[in-house]
């Protein structure tokens, strides 16, 4: 017979805190992991030894590292790197939205052109693309806007109009747009179709359901990879030397080391700044992700929510 022994509480009333007559709390001998702990200790010692060694190693020329870390040229170059990043990400975001609308369109012309764009820009190295943008004004000395096969309406000389900075931004933005477009598309596709249907069923237009319902929810999926792209863009700016544009962080640190013949500490300076800036962005991303997950993360029918279902919930 199965039966509850000692139903020692009056049913219907919550048990007193701590429980009456609590069973002995189990104080078991914890499981040990001797091998794992040994490896961990060895690794930790190696790690410390490596840091210790690095801090004393002559080749790093830490005195020079410190001297130039806050050199005005370096910090000014870091600012240029930030400008490049922000401008090109902003332009890329606008382009990406356009591309996404084109790719989700039912019109085959829009879809094909957007596909072609993404194919070209994802298929070639950004470094090579930047070299191309550098010679843009040679290939197209004047850019003409207007109807094809007719005299142009507007026409301007690319060489004058576009500085190397502008070309660097353009090159980075056009490349990035192809990646962001994929991210935005994936984000929109990730929203449960029922959401759009519920909105449509309420009489909302496609645009309203997109802006009010689908896009806010897709942000949760879009923000993390976009944050990554932002961080990645900050690093990609180190390639603008291909344009050639040479006022960014890496190029300037290289300029200094060409004068002082101390490339290693100046590489370290540049790396430190990159690391600092990307770390700031990572922290920012963390908080942004938290904000956009608001009310969404556990939005599922009660049954599924009751049991911790995916590992992410269980761990994160």
């Amino acid at each position, binding site marked *: 017979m199965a039966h509850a022994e000692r139903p020692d509480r009056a049913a219907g009333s919550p048990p007193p805190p701590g429980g009456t007559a609590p069973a002995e709390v189990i104080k078991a001998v914890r499981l040990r992991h001797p091998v794992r702990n040994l490896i961990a200790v060895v690794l930790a010692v190696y790690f410390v030894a490596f840091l210790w060694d690095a801090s004393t190693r002559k080749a790093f020329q830490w005195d020079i590292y410190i001297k130039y870390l806050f050199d005005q040229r370096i910090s000014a170059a870091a600012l240029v790197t930030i400008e490049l990043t922000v401008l090109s990400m902003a332009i890329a975001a606008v382009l990406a939205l356009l591309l996404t609308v084109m790719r989700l369109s039912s019109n085959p012309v829009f879809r094909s052109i957007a596909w072609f764009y993404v194919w070209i820009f994802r298929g070639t190295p950004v470094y090579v693309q930047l070299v191309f943008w550098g010679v843009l004004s040679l290939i197209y000395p004047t850019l003409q806007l207007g109807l094809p096969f007719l005299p142009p309406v507007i026409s301007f000389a690319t060489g004058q109009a576009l500085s190397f900075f502008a070309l660097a931004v353009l090159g980075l933005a056009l490349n990035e747009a192809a990646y962001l477009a994929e991210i935005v598309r994936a984000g929109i596709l990730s929203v449960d179709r029922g959401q759009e249907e519920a909105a449509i069923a309420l009489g909302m237009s496609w645009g309203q359901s997109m802006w009010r319902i689908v896009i806010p929810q897709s942000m949760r999926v879009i923000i993390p990879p976009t944050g990554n792209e932002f961080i990645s863009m900050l690093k990609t700016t180190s390639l603008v030397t291909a344009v050639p544009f040479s006022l960014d962080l890496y190029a300037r640190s290289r300029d200094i080391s060409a004068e002082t*013949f101390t490339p290693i500490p100046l590489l370290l300076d540049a790396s430190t700044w990159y690391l600092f800036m990307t770390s700031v962005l990572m922290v920012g991303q963390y908080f942004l992700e938290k904000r956009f997950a608001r009310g969404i993360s556990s939005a599922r029918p009660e049954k599924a929510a009751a049991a911790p279902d995916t590992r992410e919930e269980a761990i994160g």
Partner: protein
Amino acid sequence: VNNTPAPAPTATVGASTKDATLASLLPASIKSAGVIQVGVDATYAPNEYKDPSGNAIGWDIDLFNAVAAKLGVKANYNIAGFDTIIPNITGGKYDAGVSSFTDTAEREKQVDFVNYYSAGILWASAAGKTVDPSNACGLKVAVESGTTEQQDEVPAKSAACVKAGKKPIQILKYDGQDLATNAVVLGQADAMSADSPITEYAIAKSGGKLQAAGTTTDVAPYGIAVAKGSTLGTAVQKALQALVDDGSYKAILTKWGVADGGLTTITINAAANG
């Protein structure tokens, strides 16, 4: 694959044989290895550039191969970015830098130079476009990163422009001389500034796309860079002098069409020592 030993110098030009007394001057490490590690930026035709299979060639290479042969060792050419060569010598990765280094007092603080040639600076512009190097204010001038042209010559001219109330020169920095030269051919830059042998060679090879702008100026010695105080410097100096004396030095320069800047006496650190 990148560190392929250069092909042996041809029999007719620069053939030289081992000189035991010179060889004895080599530092022990090179002697035991039998190889001199050389850093070279192979984008500086005809001084040093790449053959179709990617190996370093050029008259600098021919000349240094002859030096190595005199010293009874082989030269191993590591293709590198120009501005990384000197740090690699001070860091001990390369024994020598053979890359058309202009011997300057600034650089002599880092390394010793065995002077082996006298080169000037010569500008070039696209054919049909007249550029005056002494009045290039507001123009775009292409240079290779880390060269004296990038660090000293063009900035000085630009500063003069600013002083005179004119627009500064826009300096376009490229990772290799080939990119700088091509920028002029394409029209991305108005002119380029490089060592005279390079500019002359580029003009000759470009099939009429480039023309000289102004004349050769700022004549200064080239030097083979070695670690400061290394006996390798003396060994190379003596070996080069021997090549000058036996005429093979002249033969190599003549073969490449750059005999104009040839020296008769090989010295060390000419910039500081005059």
